């Protein structure tokens, strides 16, 4: 059998301040109060500020999250921060709007001639530009004013600027094909495509060598007869030029990336496929979700980036970190829903099964939401809460003493640095760091833990979660 390894992972961000108004919360709140809308628009970040923001650099993996400076991170000057880095990039909004048009196969997006020209010019010189269908940007040029008059259309802006584009609904009455749903889906497709293109071309991979793509983003594309129909993954594979791949999506709220990695690893391990990519795009619905807390605290609107991620799983190459399928931790129906019960099921039970302790794991990556985003709205520091729970359980188990709890949290945990798009924060955002730590770094094992709020769909009161161990490959030593 083939031990599955993660060969490469890449992460991207798209800075989209003009699209934040279409996030679920702002789209409901801004129309109610002109003063709030004005303050919101005045509080959007510049691209330079978004690039310089230290958590974004950690997300691109140009610095390890434990190397982040002391907070506050907001207001950090540009310094040496670069748009490109760590195998990914922060894409500015004009280019992202061009990318939306380039991946739009249904003629949903209309752009002004000026924006289309600027976006196409920028993407033509982009390192990945030759792999994009840039001709679609020109075809998207049209009467934006007229497109805006169509019932249910959405306006596209660059930051707080004027209307420069529009997205039309694909059906007059289908609630699964409204302009806002389609913009969410297109945004996810665009950012996932960008991440997948970086994965392939930054690592000199043959796009035709990838057999299967598994999507684990938050969007459930479909129509009125099957709202969560799915398979954005195959659409992304097509956009990225993976002509030999097929795909599917895995849905599990914010926890989906770990089941996606588990399935990818299982497909490789069983020999069904040789190479499987796991991809996810950003969640437009979550942009600006906590903007009220940010404005109350005189902060910029911090939820202004869409994330994207792509990783490649294949059979053991003797070097890349191994995804240990015997380490899968799952949250059983009977496991209980309190934080300690969930952590017991996801972190401790698998280690116990493998004869390992919590101190055999160098890094725990779980729900790495950026606390500078969550705290102003009263949501607290999510990763810190997780690490304290985990450390308390480790102490109860006898792996560490009570006095060692703070050190455990500090050295095996890390500050949250991910945009508040749960699937990215759920361990997945640490993947590039994990690969570095388990190859050129000092780590032996990294545990990725994801949790999903299954109860939000009102079909159950349960939550869910899954964990996986990544382990240093001993192939060369052997």
């Amino acid at each position, binding site marked *: 059998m083939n031990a599955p390894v993660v060969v490469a992972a890449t992460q991207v961000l798209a800075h989209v301040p003009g699209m934040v108004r279409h996030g679920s919360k702002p789209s409901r709140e801004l129309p109610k109060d002109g003063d709030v809308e004005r303050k919101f628009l005045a509080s959007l970040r510049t691209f330079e500020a978004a690039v310089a923001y230290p958590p974004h650099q950690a997300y691109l993996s140009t610095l390890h999250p434990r190397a982040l400076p002391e907070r506050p991170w907001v207001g950090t000057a540009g310094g040496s921060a670069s748009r490109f880095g760590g195998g990914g990039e922060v894409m500015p909004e004009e280019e992202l709007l061009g990318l939306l048009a380039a991946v739009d196969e249904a003629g949903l997006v209309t752009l002004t001639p000026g924006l289309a020209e600027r976006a196409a010019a920028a993407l033509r010189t982009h390192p990945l530009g030759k792999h994009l269908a840039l001709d679609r940007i020109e075809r998207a040029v049209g009467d934006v004013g007229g497109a805006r008059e169509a019932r249910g259309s959405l306006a596209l802006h660059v930051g707080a600027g004027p209307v420069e584009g529009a997205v039309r609904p694909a059906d007059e009455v289908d609630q699964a094909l409204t302009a806002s749903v389609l913009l969410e889906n297109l945004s996810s497709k665009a950012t996932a495509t960008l991440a997948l293109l970086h994965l392939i071309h930054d690592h000199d991979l043959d796009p035709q060598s990838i057999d299967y793509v598994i999507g684990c983003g938050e969007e459930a594309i479909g129509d009125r007869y099957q709202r969560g129909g799915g398979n954005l993954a195959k659409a992304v594979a097509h956009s990225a030029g993976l002509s030999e791949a097929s795909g599917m999506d895995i849905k599990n709220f914010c926890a989906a990336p770990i089941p996606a990695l588990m399935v990818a690893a299982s497909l490789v391990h069983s020999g069904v496929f040789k190479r499987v990519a796991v991809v996810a795009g950003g969640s437009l619905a979550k942009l600006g979700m906590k903007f009220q807390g940010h404005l109350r605290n005189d902060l910029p609107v911090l939820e202004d980036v869409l994330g994207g991620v792509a990783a490649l799983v294949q059979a053991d190459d003797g070097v890349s970190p191994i995804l240990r399928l015997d380490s899968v931790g799952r949250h059983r129906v009977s496991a209980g829903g309190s*934080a300690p019960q969930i952590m017991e099921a996801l972190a401790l039970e698998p280690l116990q099964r493998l004869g390992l302790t919590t101190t055999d794991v160098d890094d725990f990556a779980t729900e790495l939401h950026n606390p500078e985003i*969550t705290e102003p709205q009263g949501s607290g520091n999510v990763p810190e*809460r997780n690490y304290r729970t985990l450390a308390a359980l480790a102490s109860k188990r006898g792996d560490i003493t009570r006095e060692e709890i703070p050190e455990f949290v500090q050295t095996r945990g890390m500050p949250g640095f991910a945009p508040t798009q749960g699937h990215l924060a759920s361990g997945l955002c640490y993947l590039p760091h994990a690969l570095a730590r388990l190859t050129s770094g000092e780590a032996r094992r990294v545990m990725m833990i994801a949790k999903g709020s299954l*109860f*939000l769909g009102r079909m159950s009161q349960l*939550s869910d979660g899954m964990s996986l161990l990544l382990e240093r490959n001993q192939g060369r030593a052997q």
Partner: protein
Amino acid sequence: MLKGKQVVALGERDGVSGPAIAACVEAAGGTVAFSATECFV
């Protein structure tokens, strides 16, 4: 304290879930009119 009272139990994903609050309310003699758990991240 909760005997005869109607309670709306709003749980939080990282804290105490709606069903857990509801169980406490009922144990204390209250009636749960509505219970839900939300996610705020």
